[in-house]
């Protein structure tokens, strides 16, 4: 039975890492800098498609799936490329609207962008496989395991890979948020006119977090597609962005640990937790219940606990400037 446990455990770990990386990126954009990136899911999707296309090899006319580009690049390159694509796409899309629009208009524009992206991907058959999407994406480093990618040891390897990538992502966002750059991002979030009056450039900071957050989104998509070997538009409809925002609100906007907790509680917890409820009623009922809970959560948290499960840390500086450590241990508020 332990084999099944290993499989299920590695599934949880991988999905948790994927959602964790995605939430870290969105938290950097929204929780820390106040950028209402309602098109976030597009960047995860772009990363997934990039990684898939770069491992599937060139699209052939006789194959059942057609897409642009295509190569068979070895392990880390598709992931890196996915991150790069996510970063640049996020920068482009975000900067189109961010400078000119107030936050609710911006949210709608980005929502519309998300809808356009799904529609185009679904209907343009030669682009990324159309409605059916892409499938049979080879898993990374399969050759190291003698080409067998379905056994325990490969799964353990992949979950380890996912965990490492997740940890690295969080180290990255932590370094950013705890630096003066991160402090300026938070100032922009709290009071943009005041920050501008102090010389803080909204453009530079929003561009920076769009790049890094977009890269993380792309990375999370690549990791996911390399695990489940398939990717289709139905997997990245615009409500997925809403799920990530809910995860941040529940976990604690602005807090990196909160983002991780939110990722585990919301997309992972509700998605997987539904398995364990007794099946009553139709399948639609179960799906409805999940989404009703996801809809209810932001309302409950915004009302009763707007700071989330793990509130943003209060930054405290060491009492004695001459002491060896620059910063005293964090004191949570």
């Amino acid at each position: 039975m332990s084999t099944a446990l290993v499989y299920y455990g590695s599934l949880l770990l991988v999905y948790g890492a994927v959602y964790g990386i995605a939430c870290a990126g969105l938290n950097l954009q929204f929780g820390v800098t106040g950028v209402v990136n309602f098109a976030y899911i597009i960047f995860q999707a772009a990363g997934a498609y990039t990684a898939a296309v770069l491992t599937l090899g060139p699209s052939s006319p006789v194959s059942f799936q057609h897409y642009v580009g295509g190569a068979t690049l070895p392990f880390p390159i598709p992931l890196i490329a996915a991150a790069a694509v996510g970063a640049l796409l996020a920068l482009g899309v975000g900067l189109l609207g961010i400078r000119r629009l107030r936050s609710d208009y911006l949210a709608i524009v980005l929502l519309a962008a998300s809808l356009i992206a799904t529609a185009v991907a679904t209907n343009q058959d030669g682009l990324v496989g159309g409605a059916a999407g892409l499938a049979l994406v080879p898993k990374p480093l399969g050759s190291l395991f003698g080409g067998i990618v379905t056994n325990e040891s490969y799964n353990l390897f992949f979950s380890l890979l996912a965990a490492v990538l997740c940890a690295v992502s969080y180290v990255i966002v932590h370094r950013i948020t705890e630096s003066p750059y991160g402090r300026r991002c938070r100032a922009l979030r709290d009071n943009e006119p005041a920050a501008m009056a102090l010389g803080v450039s909204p453009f530079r900071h929003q561009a920076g977090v769009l790049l890094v957050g977009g890269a993380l989104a792309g990375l999370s998509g690549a990791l996911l597609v390399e695990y489940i070997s398939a990717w289709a538009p139905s997997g990245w409809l615009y409500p997925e962005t809403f799920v990530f925002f809910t995860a941040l609100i529940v976990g604690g906007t602005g807090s990196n640990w909160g983002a991780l907790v939110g990722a585990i509680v919301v997309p992972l917890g509700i998605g997987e937790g539904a398995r364990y409820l007794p099946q009553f009623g139709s399948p639609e009922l179960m799906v409805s219940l999940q989404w009703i809970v996801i809809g209810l959560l932001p309302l409950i948290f915004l009302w009763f606990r707007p700071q989330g499960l793990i509130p943003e840390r209060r930054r405290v500086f060491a009492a004695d400037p001459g002491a060896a450590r620059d910063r005293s241990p964090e004191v949570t508020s």
Partner: protein
Amino acid sequence: MTTDSTRGPQTASSQAGAAGATPAEAAAPDERAVGARPALETRALGKTYGGLSAVSNVSLAVRYGEILGIIGPNGAGKSTLVGMIAGAIQPSGGDVVLDGTAVTGWRPQALAKLGLRRTFQVAAVFPRLTVLENLLLGVSEGPGESVLSVLGPGRRWRAREREQVRRARALLATFGLASKESEYAGNLSGGEQRLVEIMRTTMSEVRTLLLDEPMAGVNPRMMCVIEDYLLNLRSQGVAVIMIEHRMESVERMCDSVVVMARGEVIATGAMTDVRQTESVVNAYLVG
């Protein structure tokens, strides 16, 4: 226009203020001499909102080492004027010249680089940052602080940050807020937030300071501290433009005043002269 008549008493707090804070060092002394080119000038500055004129034809100038007051009844357009000077509002017409450079239409971040600092009518603190962090925001960005370089191993900014923390703490001590250093700025009282806002503007090299009702909501004891602090800034050559309703503060600190009503300047000059002017008296009674 002599400046000494409005000097406040040299209290202990102002001495501490002079010693502890280190703003306003950038310009050479001769640039700051009274009589040299103005720190800030507006020429026929105006703003209309869809047919309604909020500010029209305002020309004023303030020199380094001078405090200019802007007074007038509510709705006179004072905050709009300051907003235009600060780059937050785009003028409909006219020019703004800062330190000899035409800056009309420049954004606030660009003006900040020329040493312009401002406060807002409602104290604009960063509520989810601590008081100390708020002050640290007052320092301009240094090298090694871009998003990519903070990912690298270099920690150039740490040493600089330590120094800034020291300066900020000295400033907090001056204003009696040292105990609140790790409080969220959003939890402070209105008057305390105002103090944080003012302190923040002087954390880096301020040359021209715009204040929008700095005394509003501040308790009388703190008002003295602020007044002494501003007078101290003036003696260091900072140019100050101050919107203020509290006449005692205006009389104590301002070298000259500009009186606005219904968007226009209706009088300028020394406070003593201006308060006799009939149009000014009428504006206050009617407006």
